């Protein structure tokens, strides 16, 4: 191995290990009940991010200097199974879970973006969250998010990507419910978690199916060994259609594409710094990143590419309409983000991968700035209006003129109700599911009562627990 590759390998480990150590430090200190002080948390956080950011920049520099487009670092088998004997002659036992990270034109910019935005917003959050009760909790979950993002960005295998993907999902849901003494953020956090969980299930299925198709979960095998985006998928059109739709489903859940868009405004319940970096910049683009990563698969099937384009454009139109009528700034920004994500997805479907990547990077930076400026928007408006000496002009969008007058009230209601997407998912999926299983539960209780001859003991929320507590050591 040449010198610069050794350096890239070393720096790659630094990029990956910085958030791991941060997460371990924050998590263990919380678990053993010895929380770090605010200044200490800030110092450790800034140190980890600076190191990770500098290392990722150094990798970019080394790759550019040495004209490297695709560097794969294999960290070894996390789990490997090979048959010890020929006990089961009818089927072979072979399973590998390889931990592999890839530095290419897609992963390096995304990792740098992650470090840059998370580092900046994290520093902003040090002040923003000052003396907040859940200061440590915020940074622990934030560290988990960054770890998930870095793992997803650099993943060289579908399993590694899935690992990061799940971490991002959990940290997002828990941060939405950050102000957990109020029920609304908690309900919204749960809602987002449910959508993420469904999307995770689709990704897991896609991962396992892909693993079976090529015998390994490596992107190199699945998508061709060439540097991104030049790979050629090693699967047939039919196989690509199955895997592709699963991946599209997973991306739709993660990036709030139609019909899952309803969770995005709900996610704004979290603290502004996390909303900015998650739903303005990184998390909301993760679906698009996934589609970019597997874009050679999309290419193998015209139907799949068409589906991606249609989904992207539908989401963009929907988000534009819904965003136009939002009355709070964070929701308006979230739909503006979504409109751009929809366009990025459409670009991916059309095969404009570099445009999509540049669009993604630029949009993430701009939107993050808008999100962190959102709380001071009124102050900005006042400054502007004072400077102008008049009220800011308000106007309807250009498209409004082309919409026939009878349609306008309907369209307005449609946009205000966010396309009824949440209501449709609730009324036609969640409620029937809950009703069905509540009915099963009721029948089970009746059956058990019949067998036992006695009523089952249920938790009684009104029972005072004081007597029991006082007996504690």
């Amino acid at each position, binding site marked *: 191995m040449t010198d610069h590759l050794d350096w890239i390998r070393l720096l790659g480990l630094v990029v990956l290990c910085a958030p791991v150590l941060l997460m371990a430090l924050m998590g263990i200190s919380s678990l053993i*009940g010895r929380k770090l002080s605010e200044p200490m948390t800030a110092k450790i956080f800034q140190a980890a991010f600076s190191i990770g950011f500098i290392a990722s920049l150094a990798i970019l520099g080394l790759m550019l200097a040495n004209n490297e487009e695709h560097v794969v670092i294999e960290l070894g*088998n*996390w*789990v*490997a*199974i090979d*048959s*010890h*004997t020929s*006990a089961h*002659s009818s*089927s*072979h*036992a072979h*399973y590998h*879970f390889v931990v592999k990270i890839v530095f290419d034109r897609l992963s390096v910019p995304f990792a740098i973006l992650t470090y840059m935005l998370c580092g900046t917003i994290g520093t902003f959050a040090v002040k923003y969250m000052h003396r907040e*009760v859940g200061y440590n909790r915020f940074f622990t979950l934030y560290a988990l998010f960054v770890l998930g993002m870095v793992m997803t960005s650099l993943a060289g295998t579908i*399993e590694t990507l*899935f*690992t990061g993907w*799940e*971490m991002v999902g*959990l940290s997002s849901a828990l941060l939405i*419910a950050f102000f*957990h*003494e109020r*029920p609304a953020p*908690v309900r919204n956090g*749960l809602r987002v*978690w449910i959508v993420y*969980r469904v999307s*995770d*299930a689709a990704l*897991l299925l896609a991962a*396992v199916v892909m693993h*079976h198709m090529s015998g390994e979960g490596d992107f190199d095998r699945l998508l061709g060994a060439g540097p991104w985006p030049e790979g050629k998928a090693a699967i047939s059109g039919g196989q690509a259609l199955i895997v592709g739709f699963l991946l599209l489903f997973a991306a739709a859940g993660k990036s709030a594409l139609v019909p899952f868009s309803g969770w995005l405004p709900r996610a704004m319940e979290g603290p502004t710094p996390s909303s900015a970096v998650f739903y303005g910049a990184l998390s909301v683009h993760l679906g698009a990143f996934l589609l970019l990563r597997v874009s050679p698969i999309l290419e193998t099937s015209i139907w799949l590419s068409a589906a991606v384009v249609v989904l992207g454009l539908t989401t963009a139109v929907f988000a534009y309409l819904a965003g136009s009528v939002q009355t709070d700034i964070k929701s308006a920004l979230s739909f503006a983000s979504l409109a751009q994500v929809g366009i990025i997805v459409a670009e991916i479907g059309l095969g404009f991968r570099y445009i999509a990547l540049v669009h993604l990077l630029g949009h993430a930076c701009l939107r993050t700035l808008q999100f962190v400026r959102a709380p001071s928007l009124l102050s900005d408006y006042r400054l502007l209006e004072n400077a102008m000496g008049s009220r800011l002009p308000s106007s309807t969008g250009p498209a409004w003129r082309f919409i026939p007058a009878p349609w306008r009230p309907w369209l307005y209601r449609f946009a205000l109700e966010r396309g009824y997407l949440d209501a449709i998912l609730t009324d036609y999926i969640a409620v029937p*599911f*809950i009703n*069905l299983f509540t009915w*099963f*539960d009721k029948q*089970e209780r009746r*059956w*058990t009562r019949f*067998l*036992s*001859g006695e009523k*089952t*003991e*249920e*938790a*009684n*929320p009104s029972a005072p*627990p004081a007597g*029991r*507590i*006082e*007996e*504690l*050591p």
Partner: protein
Amino acid sequence: MSFWNIPWLEITILTPLLGALLTSGVREPARGHAWGLAFTGAALIAALIGWLGFQLHGRTDGGAWSLEHRFFANHFFAIDELNLPLIPLVALLHFLTSLATTRTKMRRYSTTWSLAAESIRLAAFSCKEPWLLISLISIGVLPPLIEMLNRGKPSRVFVLHMSLFIVLMTLGWTFVDSSDNRRTQTAWATLPLMLAILVRCGAVPLHCWVTDWCENASFGNALLYITPLVGVYAAVRLVLPIAPDWTLRAIGIISLLTALYTAGLGTVQRDARRFFAYFFLSHASLVLVGLELHTPISLTGSLCLWLSVTLSLSGFGLVLRALEARYGRLSLNQFHGLYDHSPTLAICFLLLGLGSVGFPGTIGFESAELLVDGAIEANLYVGIGVVIASALNGIAVVRVYFLLFTGKKHSSTINLEIAPRERIAILALASLIVLGGLFPQPVVNSRHLAAESILRDRESRIPHSETVSVFTEELENE
């Protein structure tokens, strides 16, 4: 006599039995509990030495010092690839449950019966002799039942189901042809055995004893009875080696339906104990799904999942038990907002709950990956079912976390934070699932060896054509 010639397995089994005899006369709960802790700790140490002895020297019998050898000239109890981690695991669960028992629960938690149950359970997990195993599993029903009767709780549902299990198991094994010939067993043997396993593992529609048991037994007792998955052990020892493919297929399908159904029920529960029961049932059924596919990967995944489920759900149950000790029976009809009072319990609840559904960084993750991989290899629909069940369980656990720990501010003037002994017990289990998740290879190796040994055993007893997974056959036909 060398250190490794000491019959550690027998000491592991006999120590809690001795403890049960000695503590039966102790009336003061705190003193009885202290003795109980000492005996479960001693049993754990002996189990760990036995495990080490097997790993280093392959010793399992204790040589001439073995009591079995001396009195019966035979070895009924032995360590092999399958039960190698299960014996210390059962001993550990008993020790940690005892350690985490608060003073409020000491009166309810009978040390004597718990020690007796531990001894029987350890003996069952060490036993390969079919009739002795059936007897031990049957006798194992008694200590928890007696404890429940002593507390005046309704036990009819439990008694009905366990009686059915014992009758079916006995009936089934009576018709099993134990000769060395490779042959397919008759339906007279396999059908009752299959039904017995389904009853003991809580398969739908024979599962309501588990919810009833969790609601009426003391929580510690309930945990120790169900989480080691004795029914799955009986399935591996008694059914898997001899059952024809249609039996395994039936068990697999019913288990998959149970996993999905109980995962769905877990998401709508209004009571924490019932939630735990359904959560457990779903996971136990997933273990059975992997076993019944009997491909090397699915079997390895299933055996890994067994360890993961036992560790995670025991820890998860201990957290719920600790919460109950502070707040009484927990309703899931409303938010409780307990986070600020018990942050460590909240973190452990989430960690252990997510560990059981296979969150990355926990031992459950690799187990779930292997299981799904093995399931999809055998049949795509089974794989989809496993993934859906896992997704529903993930939703259920976070829903319950939010209901218990968030949503409002709980006010109390008393310090409700986790007690040191509870912290040790819960963190020990949490550490094991995280360590197992970060370094899964030793666990996977050990379980893969066990899987190969099981498949070899099956291959030696059943005509070769039938050892092919039914699902694989179907896939090939397609």
